């Protein structure tokens, strides 16, 4: 084990306190009983019995699925291309991926209302395309880091000299090699989609977050429970994803040494 400097340890302690205390406080809050007396699970059972819980969760999950597929299909080939032959386009793509962090989502929502065709605006799947835009910066970064850490050039050449075509190379060589980077990107995309409120609310679609906002006006404790459940769920998936790829890699031991 490495020894950490006191400054590092203090920074980590502060970060843990600052980021965990709201979560813990909300957790305690959410277990309060009827009228704030005692502790019970009543707020959690209340959520599930609300009308619209399953419907809206299903809508958001479907949107998340479509967004994940779209963002991967769009960005994986693009980033691989940038790493292989298209290096000169890198600056441009990096710049494009910066803009969604900076351009206000509110502006994007207004623009979508003005610019998108009517048939697209009539379905909630319209949101997926804009979720892809919003997720792009994070996904690009994750994939870029993943591809930097593997000897992509050598892998592709080896695969091609063994007679594989581009599709096979992508599917059987590149994708497994960047699997952990992809799971990271996947998780961020899902977290973002399941929590996105601005676009959904301004474009007048009913999704899980907008439903939570509506329901929260009726029962504050229930809404806190809902928020905690969402976040804890997200963190559990995160923990799983952080450790599964490592385990798998150790077991196979193929790509670690390139």
């Amino acid at each position: 084990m490495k020894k950490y400097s006191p400054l590092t340890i203090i920074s980590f302690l502060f970060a843990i306190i600052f980021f965990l205390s709201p979560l813990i406080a909300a957790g305690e809050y959410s277990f309060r009983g009827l009228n704030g007396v005692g502790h019970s699970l009543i707020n959690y059972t209340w959520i599930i019995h609300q009308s619209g819980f399953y419907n809206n969760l299903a809508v958001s999950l479907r949107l998340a699925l479509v967004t994940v597929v779209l963002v991967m299909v769009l960005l994986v080939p693009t980033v691989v291309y940038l790493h292989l032959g298209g290096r000169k386009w890198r600056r441009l793509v990096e710049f494009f991926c910066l803009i969604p962090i900076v351009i206000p989502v509110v502006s994007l929502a207004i623009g979508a209302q003005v610019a998108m065709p009517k048939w697209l605006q009539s379905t909630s799947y319209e949101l997926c395309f804009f979720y892809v835009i919003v997720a792009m910066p994070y996904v690009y970064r994750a994939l870029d880091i993943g591809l930097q850490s593997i000897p992509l050039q050598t892998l592709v050449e080896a695969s091609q000299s063994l007679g594989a075509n581009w599709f096979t190379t992508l599917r059987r060589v590149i994708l497994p090699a960047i699997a952990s980077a992809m799971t990271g990107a996947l998780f961020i995309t899902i977290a973002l989609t399941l929590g996105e409120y601005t676009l959904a609310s301004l474009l007048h679609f009913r999704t899980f977050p907008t439903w939570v906002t509506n329901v929260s006006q009726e029962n504050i404790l229930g809404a806190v429970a809902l928020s905690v459940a969402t976040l804890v769920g997200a963190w559990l998936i995160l923990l799983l994803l952080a450790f599964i790829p490592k385990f798998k890699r150790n077991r196979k031991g193929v790509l670690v040494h390139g």
Partner: protein
Amino acid sequence: MMSKTGTAAAVGNHSSGLTAFLHKCRTTSFWGIVPFLIFAGYFLFWPIFSIAKASITDNKHHISLGVYKLLFTGNYREAFISSFKLSLFSALLAGVLGAILAFAISKTSGAVKSFTNSAAGVLANTGGVPLAFMFVAAFGQDGLVTKILLFFHWDIYAGSFDLGNFWGILLVYCFFQIPLMVIIFSPAVENMKKEWAEASDSLGANSFQFFRFVTAPILFPAFLSATLLLFASAFSAYATARAMTIGNLPLVPLVIGTLVDGNVIPSEANLGDALAMGMVFVSGLAIVAYLGLLRFSKGRS
């Protein structure tokens, strides 16, 4: 750097075909980027262009900048000023704290590092009602942290602090701004060479001198540019601001939100478009400054 050594070693048609292909990519081809450009063009740039067009077209379909005059009056001016102030403070505060945390994370490795990186991604995207509830539960009048601090005789509500006003929102924004800073700033910190610390060490510098004369000058442009992005991110935050305030702090995204919801009927139909363009303009300034800094720091090294 690219395929020279690899192709020399490998024999056969496929390899030479690949070399030719890679060569073509480097010189002429741009097919690999086309789907990305089309997607970003249609779903990112076309909407922005459309509001720009709508904002300069008045009710009679004439081109006019009249609506922009409204942005400099009354409530709209107030909203821009308070949005600007909040974003500036939050960018500086989260910038410094996030940079410190990025340094701490750079000292770790393996599972801890990959976990903190993913955690930063998740935290940076936390917002809206869930975040507001968490902070009310922790720092509200009746919150857990408030009570604990009160136990140590620190009443955070003794002054003018309130979760719904300026300082409260600043605190809440830190929750997603600090992780965002970690995400943006970490690559620069990781690029610091180990040899520099060793060289400075062998020349007899202590760690403060190393920071003052080596780390700080090298990372300052990256720090400033990351802070500019934080500014833009705070400037555009909507869900959290909406959940935290009850109309007591006018912020531009909130004003636009009420216009879109149809609760308020503006005197000019395209006022919302003009406000949105105003936001794009302020954020655009931050991006231009960011790119300028990036070029400056690249040119120097």
